[in-house]
């Protein structure tokens, strides 16, 4: 009898302590959750405005060594340029909270974007982490591709070599370039999900 009471109360305490902070992840094949974010110039950008085009989303944190790997080597800029050349829209999203590593205000982002020669269409600020959590973005970088019909067709890492070593880029399979190529050819994405790697997204807790 006493057990029962104690166990029920303890289970209740334990259950609440484990509230899920991250919203349910988006599913491949489902319509990607629409969102509005402010870009580094203060302009509002809405995902559904790009319906009809392929959209690539890249989670970004300039202080993360894994992001540095792909920008210092020029790999990310090249991937962005290739995607845009194919007619895709590239959204770079920063979900870092104020006071955390990688957090930037608009002007700082503009400077960084220029200095690093970023080729994204928009650099979006997601300070509250709402969009990051809606997509369950876990790492920087973490990549998502939405097709012209608004469906999520890829989520995962930028490539299949989870290291911070620039030398590994050459021999890696760039999942984003490969998926965009397949979409362009009217095929389905062969690797639609992979393990993202990098630093954790620095959300406001």
């Amino acid at each position, binding site marked *: 009898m006493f057990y029962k009471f104690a166990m029920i109360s303890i289970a209740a305490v*334990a259950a609440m*302590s484990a509230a899920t902070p991250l919203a349910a*992840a988006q599913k491949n094949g489902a319509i990607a959750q629409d969102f509005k974010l402010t870009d580094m110039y203060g302009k509002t950008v809405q995902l559904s405005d790009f319906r009809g085009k392929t959209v690539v989303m890249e989670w970004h944190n300039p202080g*993360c060594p894994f992001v540095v790997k792909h920008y210092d080597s020029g790999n990310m800029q090249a991937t962005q340029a290739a995607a845009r050349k194919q007619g895709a829209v590239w959204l770079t999203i920063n979900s870092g909270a104020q006071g955390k590593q990688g957090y930037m205000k608009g002007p700082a982002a503009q400077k960084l974007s220029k200095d690093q020669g970023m080729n994204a269409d928009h650099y979006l600020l997601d300070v509250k982490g709402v969009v990051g959590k809606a997509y369950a973005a876990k790492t920087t970088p973490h990549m998502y591709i939405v097709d012209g019909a608004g469906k999520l067709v890829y989520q995962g890492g930028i490539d299949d070599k989870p290291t911070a070593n620039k030398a590994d880029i050459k021999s890696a399979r760039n999942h984003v370039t490969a998926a965009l190529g397949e979409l362009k050819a009217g095929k389905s994405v062969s690797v639609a999900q992979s393990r993202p790697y990098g630093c954790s997204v620095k959300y406001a807790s």
Partner: protein
Amino acid sequence: MFATMLAAIIFALLTAVSPAVAQTGLDRRELNVPATLVAESQQVQPGQSVTLAFVMNPKPTWHGYWENPGDAGIGMSFDWKLPDGVTAGDAQYPVPDTLLISGIMNYIYKGDYAVLVNLAVSDQVKPGPLPISVKSEWLACTDEVCVPEQDELFINLQVVDKDVGVSPNNAFNAYREALPRPLGSTATFMVKDDLFRLSIPLPADVDVEAPYFFIKEDGIVDYGAPQKVNRDGDSLIIETAARGDALQNISGVLKIASNMGFSLDASGGEVEMSGVPLSGGADSGNFTGGGDQSKASLLFIALGGAIVGGLLLNLMPCVFPILSLKAISLAKAGGDETVVRRDALAYTAGVVVVATALGALLLGLRASGAAVGWAFQLQDPRIIFLLLALVTAIGFNLAGLFELPNVNFGNRLAQKDGPAGSFWTGALAAFVATPCTGPFMAAALGATIILPPIAALIIFAGLGVGLALPFLLIAFVPAIRSRLPKPGAWLDSFRKAMAIPMFLTAIGLIWLLGRQIGTDALGLSLIFLLLVTLILWWFGGGQMKGLSRGTWATSALIAAIFGGVLFLPNAEAMNEQKVASASSTTLPSEAFSETRLSELRASNRPVFAYFTADWCITCKANEAAAVQRQETADAFANANVAVLMGDWTRPDPEISKFLEKHGRAGVPLYLYYAPGEEPVILPQILTISTLTDLVT
């Protein structure tokens, strides 16, 4: 040969100079999670293997990652440069911890840890230096930032002749103990409707503190989702959110306490969520995370549960007798309403303070290390013996054999008019009642341990309030008080009758003790108990004659109880007892040791050696089906086969090493040594004929 020598000299030179010269250009002192490569022995014989350890020492606030890092992070990588004839095995990681930061789950190590790798040296390798070099990369993180780190590590081993002794590094015993132990049997998992369910065979008597399943394969479960754990007899069922990918087989580590876990493989199947819940989520650390409304209200529910629990404690067989007498004494305390109420409040304060203090002591003991839960302590027969002596003494006190001097002390204080007296009566009541309820509350107390300290203390305080609730009711509701019978001669008979539940409790404890330590040790403990009773009798006799024998009786009592505790077997001895009692089983065996094995082999006797553990279901099934059978025993007896049994229920470095040497990371292992021949490793599933065929 010359080339190897030259390489060795170069390596020796490289290792001798300052680490800053290492080819990575990294100063080791600059690393946040520096690694040191250590060998279990500097010498290795051809055809043998040697274990290396990457000893990782994270700086404060930094952590390293398990092989599956969880949502973010990266595991360790190894790029070996090994001489010909040397091969490196898979890295073996200790049981990891969880670290949940804003919903992102990391599988990490916060303190120092060691990753082990076995190097196999072929028997073709000639004696001489054996330079080993490995380039390793890993990720070092704090809660805020991550830094990829790498280092090139060298170690120069020596290949020696087979007859040269090898001296092992004892630090490796601790490294091995931190590794998960392989579960003998296969688990079953299912991914269905966004749910992942895993059923793990784990005997009901294996203590599980704060279970968490670390999965090795990515893409199967949602790492950040809470894990629900149910216990159903000999299985543990874990349910959490799935991520969608399907696999035929998975593997992982079930953590059951800090630094304690089992590695396991699971194959697909049907899993039902049966049994009783153990916990709703492993990360109870979030609990005090701030003024969240729903959290506060749920703590309220828990507190309510604790108060009801405390109230029910009044009915426990060994508490009721004491407390019902207290209730009557409170009722007769006087007609003055305010005095009665004030005394009841003071009494409540006494109970709550002592209950909370005992709770704090418990949490403090636990925090101070030993890494043992309360439930674990209660399995120590010495604690049971202490409770048995206490319950017996209270029983004889109620029966009128003697008067408790402590109660007199309390009464004396109580007679000091005012709340102080009642406070001390309450404190005394809680003090006597709380340890006495121990065996009945083991599970509940164990559960408070998974809560953060503040919440656990509130629950202990709640238990105290519940315990005192009847007295508050008597004091504040005159209708109840007026219905209580007036004290009289009947009270003495009532008190004597109340001895019966106490003695029943004692019988329960004796049964429990007997199950733990066997009849021999139980007999011994009963003799000590008799001694305790005789001293009390003698003391009570003195009281009747008006003689004060207090000092003598107290010292004799302490001696008797201390003696009982001293002579009772501890957990380790209980294990020996179990091995010893194995000689009375169908197939008698001796405890395994390598020395005994070589003795037996030198005397040209055939030897059957088997390794088992209480938590290994396969082992137990094999023992029931094949090993402990009359046919087997007869066949072995005819062939004069010596039987050695290695019990791996608790970590045993000697057995761990022996298993490793035979290419097994776990039990069961069955070996048969025919005289003068190499051992035969028997299959993991045994039949009677597998065993009898060995000797016919």
